[in-house]
């Protein structure tokens, strides 16, 4: 029986996914508050949807089993039915209620993951510019004055603000276990707020197709204790070479690279497209011109 087969497979897979919370699937294995919020939201929606599927599958199986021609009398002639006002209203209203519930959850969680993690509201965030070029990621720490390629180290239990932009095609910056993704574009700066609570190494990637070696555009996110992080920054400052403009120009040429570390950032000679450097100046220059400001305004509205 087809429907039963589906039902079983759905049930089986759902239990597989849900049991994955403590071991496997990346999205259900969060290591920080933002990813945790998203994981909870997703599990909540899966449970809601499983309920809907169950109703449809039960009705479907019932109809198929009960009203098959082979079980019917030859003389049976189905009745003419225009419909039923009350039934039709019922299956309009119930989905509307479900959509309202999901909408409330969506608005609340979207606003939550777009802002600084609640638990760290009073901490000063570590700002890291993450810019992409084909097919690598550049991480600039403006306050520390250091820059890395294809890996990023962050301290645990401290809010981190990634500011994203691109030196080429649109990319999408994603560390599944720490936060949801966001686009990096060439003409504006977007932001991701996150915090990591468990030291370890997490995969980060570009999820938006950007040409030939897209599949290799991954980086490692190393979450360290505050002490180890400070030590690493000091070490870089002492041992790594400075990043020159000509070396940076070479870096952003299309290629697949390993890791690199520098004791200065490209922001000094090639600033991010924000503020006066943004790609779009609509009308006079006093206007807000970059999207991160727009975003801040939106967030103010929701506080």
């Amino acid at each position, binding site marked *: 029986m087809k429907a039963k087969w589906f039902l079983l497979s759905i049930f089986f897979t759902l239990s597989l996914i849900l049991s994955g919370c403590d071991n496997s699937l990346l999205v259900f294995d969060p290591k920080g508050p933002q990813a945790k919020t998203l994981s909870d939201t997703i599990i909540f929606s899966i449970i809601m949807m499983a309920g809907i599927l169950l109703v449809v599958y039960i009705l479907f199986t019932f109809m198929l089993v009960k009203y098959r021609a082979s079980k019917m009398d030859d003389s049976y002639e189905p009745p003419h039915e225009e419909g039923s006002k009350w039934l039709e209203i019922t299956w309009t209203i119930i989905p509307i209620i479900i959509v309202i519930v999901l909408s409330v959850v969506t608005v609340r969680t979207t*606003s939550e993951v777009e802002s600084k993690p609640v638990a760290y509201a009073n901490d000063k965030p570590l700002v890291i510019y993450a810019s992409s070029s084909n097919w690598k990621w550049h991480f600039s720490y403006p306050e520390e004055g250091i820059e890395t390629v294809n890996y990023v180290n962050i301290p645990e239990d401290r809010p981190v603000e990634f500011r994203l932009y691109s030196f080429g095609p649109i990319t999408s910056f994603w560390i599944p276990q720490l936060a949801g993704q966001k686009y990096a574009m060439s003409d504006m700066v977007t932001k991701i707020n996150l915090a990591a609570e468990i030291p370890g190494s997490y995969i980060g990637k570009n999820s938006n197709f950007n040409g030939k070696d897209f599949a290799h555009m991954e980086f490692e996110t190393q979450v360290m204790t505050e002490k180890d992080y400070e030590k690493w920054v000091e070490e870089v400052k002492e041992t790594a070479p400075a990043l020159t403009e000509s070396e940076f120009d070479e870096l952003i040429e299309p290629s697949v690279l390993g890791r690199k570390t520098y004791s200065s950032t490209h922001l000094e000679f090639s600033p991010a497209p924000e503020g006066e450097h943004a790609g779009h100046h609509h009308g006079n220059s006093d206007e807000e011109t970059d999207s991160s400001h727009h975003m801040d305004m939106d967030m103010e*509205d929701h506080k």
Partner: protein
Amino acid sequence: MKWDEFFVTGEPMIYAAMVSIVLVSVAIVGSLTYFKKWGYLWRNWLTTVDHKKIGVMYIIAALLMLFRGGVDALLMRAQTAVPENGLLDGQHYNEIFTTHGIIMILFMAMPFIIGLMNVVIPLQIGARDVAFPRLNAVSFWLFFFGAMLLNLSFVIGGSPDAGWSAYFPLASTEFSPTVGNNYYSLSLQIAGIGTLMTGINFLVTILKMRAPGMTLMKMPMFTWSILITSVIIIFAFPVLTVALALMMLDRQFGTQFFAMQNGGMDMLWANLFWVWGHPEVYIVILPAFGIYSEIISTFARKNLYGYKSMVVSMVAISLLSFLVWVHHFYTMGHGVMVNSVFSITTMAIAVPTGVKIFNWLFTLRKGKISFTSPMLYALAFIPIFTIGGVTGVMLAMASADYQYHNTMFLVAHFHYVLIPGTVFAVIAGYHYWFPKVFGFRLNEKLAKWAFWFIAISFNVTFFPLFILGLNGMTRRMYTYSASTGYGPLNMLSMVGAVGLTIGFLLLVYNIYWSTRYAKRDTTGDPWDGRSLEWSTPSPVPEYNFAKTPVVTKLDAFWFSKKENTSLTEGEYEPIHMPNNNGQPFIMGVAFFFFGFFMVFSWWIPAIIAGLVVLGAMAYRTFEKDHGHHIPVDEIERTEKALRGEQS
């Protein structure tokens, strides 16, 4: 330009493709000449304005494109079946998933649906052709040559490689220097103009040419779905036309609409593309809903439950379809406010869609369900599509989408919507209306074997992708390392893809088998149908209805059978029919060459081909062609021959 830049070189698979293209062309030309069929081909097909033949040509082209897109899909699954596979390199994989997307949506799903609506709509509303038969032929040839142009890119010049959504700046000449994306902008443009004209044609046909007595609320549900689809086409396709024109200007004439500097906006392309692209998915799904409504009601032997709410929900879906495009890029970084609004509009679509699902379920209630091959697809649609639907709601939640965006979860979702939605529907419709066009049914046993292969393999292929997506596997990756753990589920998906292939091969083999051995249907009504198309003899004569039927209620033909009344009255009268003409075909050829020369920026030949196009239009403007009349005695003779012992 050197020859080795012109032809795609250095790839054994492409050389094989070139050889096979040449061989097939030689075989076709040779056999046409040998069997002296050139005249037949020209008179009966290339110049036809008959909606049924145009419909058949659309469906043949769609099946060919299904084959091409399917091979692309198989290659993709084979490449990713094991980690670090070397079957394809990055560039080829990128070209293949790009053409897979373009072909499956624009050159398979769309023409299959347009083919079915061409065959069925005039018959369902009791008309003798569409409102503008000549324009209909132009639509077909523009689609056909647009599709051929895109397919040519495979061997000449290189395929587009920036994804079917061709996001800028990736699709700009800076990052996609081959002519691949020129093919994209020009072939879609040519085919798109054809589609736009189809939309206009069917809107007018349905509004103006219904049989006497068939008010809007007495139209069959498939006709309703096409009416609404036509309106969506008319509003959505001009956006694509503009977007593609800007793309062409950017790539070939040095403008900077979507450029990274000088005030260009890359996301402007994404917005324009999805302002068209989201309504586009409803263009391919609403007709599917119409087909299922017909089939479920026919094989449950019951009228459609909640007809009015079915119509209202389709109208609601069509309006909402224009208000949700931003959900394709929640991750662009607009604020909470924008994302929330579009989340809610997107989820709202689930409400009318849910209403439809329940109405179908309640059409089955108290019915007498027979499990014919079209009905099997329609029934399988309900549970499988619902998975696609609920995952769609999950994706609609902006916050959660930050974790699904661009992953295999998304890929699984839209295949769960498009395959049981559109593909199952067109296959079901193809089995259902096949006897109407050809006068015999496809073999049920083979059809059911194909169905089970397709329905089960579909789930084996695509369900694992949901899990891969939640495990962080992004779409469009040509390779991955073994340490990611993505290997086993991708292998499972490959197994499913092989099963799907077997299913589709059975489907095609069934055409051959049934053509040779199937019993001819003499009734014209093999399924005990409900709407007007089943009142005509099969195959349907050129003029469709010898006498125009008069309709008094929904499912008029069903009630005329029940109550033993006649749908027609009066005597035969001479029938006015349009003449065949070669101008649409010639214009299509000229458009093809225009597009081809434009792709390579060969301006002089392009201008000449463009002038031929304009000349063909001018010819039509001044042409005096008032069609012809079929005399009464010829109608009588044809009807007698077709109805045979019946009359």
